[in-house]
């Protein structure tokens, strides 16, 4: 099939067939990772700029590894010390990148809509969203789906429970879209103060009790809890959070036998996840990290013109 996406801002509008095509590509890219020489010439001569306005070690390194394995030239641009910190508008940043000849811009930004905005200002360059505020994190969702797909094959009819701070989670929003498109049943759980009010508009169910949410789940996905949310008063204490919504072996037993324990990382042990789950046999957290490189390679390859 042809590939119609250039910039990828979110996963709205991707079809199931597109996901399946993408997953096949990702598997081929993962094969590259296992070679003694981890490099193919797919993006030779292309310039990738990793534009990170927010700290993110793992996503940035994952993209950088993916870009280098595809032989792209890579420039890392962080916000500190950039003109943005000096008051330059993003429009000027976009025009600067274009003038410098950037082919692909990978951007992480704290503002919802920033990636879409950048894409609207670039005439030629491709924008891959590495997270825009609390809105979307499409590559995280792609790697999550890929990880699950490798375990289960067809995901139609599978159930995933996402537990934690959905309100502030770009991962949750993108995962909901991705897993639903793949035919999964998605259930959200977490404190009501960390849940969007009109949660049904996301097309999913909400169960306050995680023990109910994980019943029959094939995947239990723990969302990262940021401690500053407690300072904002959105939940009373880390201990109470862990006791009610944290994933321990007891909770995992209520899911389907062998259900996958997933997490976008970095993990807070003893908060959203207990160590025995994070390090246990059901955990695929490190597999997710590996999937991240493969799926980002696939995305760079497909959007960067490798498939055309």
């Amino acid at each position, binding site marked *: 099939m042809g590939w119609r996406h250039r910039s990828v801002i979110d996963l709205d509008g991707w079809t199931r067939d597109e996901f399946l095509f993408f997953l096949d590509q990702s598997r081929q890219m993962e094969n590259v990772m296992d070679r003694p020489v981890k490099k193919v010439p797919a993006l030779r001569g292309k310039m990738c700029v990793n534009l990170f306005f927010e700290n993110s070690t793992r996503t940035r390194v994952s993209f950088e590894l993916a870009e280098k394995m595809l032989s792209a030239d890579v420039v890392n641009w962080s916000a500190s010390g950039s003109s943005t910190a000096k008051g330059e508008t993003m429009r000027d940043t976009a025009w600067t990148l274009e003038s410098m000849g950037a082919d692909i811009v990978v951007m992480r930004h*704290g*503002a919802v*809509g920033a990636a*879409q*905005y950048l894409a609207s200002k670039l005439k030629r360059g491709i924008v891959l969203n590495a997270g825009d505020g609390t*809105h979307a994190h499409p590559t995280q969702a792609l790697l999550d789906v890929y990880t699950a797909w490798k375990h289960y094959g067809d995901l139609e009819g599978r159930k995933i429970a996402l537990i934690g701070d959905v309100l502030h989670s770009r991962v949750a929003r993108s995962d909901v879209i991705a897993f639903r498109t793949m035919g999964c049943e998605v259930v959200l759980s977490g404190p009501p103060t960390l849940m969007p009010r009109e949660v049904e508009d996301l097309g999913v169910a909400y169960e306050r009790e995680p023990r109910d949410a994980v019943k029959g789940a094939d995947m239990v996905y723990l969302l990262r809890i940021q401690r500053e949310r407690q300072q904002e008063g959105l939940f009373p204490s880390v201990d109470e959070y862990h006791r009610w919504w944290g994933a321990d072996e007891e909770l995992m037993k209520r899911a389907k036998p062998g259900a996958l324990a997933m997490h976008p990382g970095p993990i807070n042990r003893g908060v959203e996840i207990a160590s025995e789950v994070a390090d246990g046999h059901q955990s695929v957290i490190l597999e997710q990290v590996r999937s991240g490189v493969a799926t980002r390679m696939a995305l760079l390859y497909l959007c960067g013109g490798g498939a055309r």
Partner: protein
Amino acid sequence: MMKFLFKNFKIFNGKEFIKEECLLTEEGKISRVGSALECEGAETVEGNGRLLTPGFIDLHAHFRDPGGEWNEDLQSGARAGAAGGFTTLVAMPNTKPAISEPALIEYVISHGAAARAARILPAGCVSKGRGGKEICEMEKMSEAGAVFFTDDGSPIATSHLMRLALLYTGKKLPRVMEHPEEISLFQGGQVHEGRVSAMSGLKGIPGASEEIDVARGIALVRDTGGRIHFTHLSSAGAVELIRNAKRAGLDVSCDTTFHHLTLNENAVIASGYNSRFKVNPPLRSANDQKALWEGLLDGTIDAIVTDHAPWHLDDKDEPFQEAPFGIASLECAVAVLLDYRARNYPEVPLELLFRKMTSSPAALLPEKWHGLGRIEEGAPADLTVVDEDRTRIVDCSAWKSKARCCPWEGTALTGWPVATFVGGERIWQDEEEL
């Protein structure tokens, strides 16, 4: 001064359409309304069946002057108003410095008048420097020409301050105008808390933020016997509170904006979170939007305003979360409403909408200005010609306003003001009319 003889118009007199189709202006006033009028030496304005209304009155516009003239100044704002069919604009006082002393009231009046375009009437602050602590010299500011008292841009900081303001203004001084918002529910908010916040992850502002402040104002009006006007209403709950307060006989009034009537949160989603749809209060749900129309129909909502909030494109053209709140709309607001009504609410009488933009807002101004918003012999000759059939594409690059950020840019709209007269002078005419 020029005399104008308006012939063959369908005339709306501020309340209803009348059978007479001619009107004569002399010495800045409407001298005659009738049929088959003639007048030697008067310039004839041929209506060909188009509409002639009292000039539109906007009770809520921002002009950034003094202190933010890069975005808009009083002259560009007055010209923008004229080009949108408005003859009277109330300037909000949240400028830098804020309009909280008599000399600044005079500044707004004199600089606005220099444009020789729409009449600009200043609102003064409730609190000195908009600091939320002490009430301003309201008697002096009223004498200087203030027509409302408001800390707009923010709600009145404390219930105590609002109570003082209501007691002090009473029935004598201009009305207190309140920007209804409970600050602690707003913090960091970007969009309506509902579908759009769930989908986007942007922080939501619940409708309750507005309702709580409206409830506070109503309670204090009951307590003090004062008068309050709630501006830019957006939520169904607030409409209901005001409906009940009016039924209880309290002197409470309110307005909503052109954009809250014609857009809802779905537009924010559909735009891909474009800052052209970022306003405060936020565009709310389709149900809230419907409640605003119901409020217009049953008389709960007294006026329709623009909340014209001009930003230079360099400031507004940013990712949604980083852009300032507010859109510019003076030059297309009337067309937006007429077009929307024709497509979605044809059962709403045109004269009802015109009332909400003419006689009804005029009645909320100090008594001196009650002659505005009506067509009758002896009233000021503030008039707007409207062509219901004119279709034009919104082109912000041609605007008189310095602002260029508007949700309807590029949209074809039908029903436009085509000429504006203030005090018997033609202050604007559509180029196609010349």
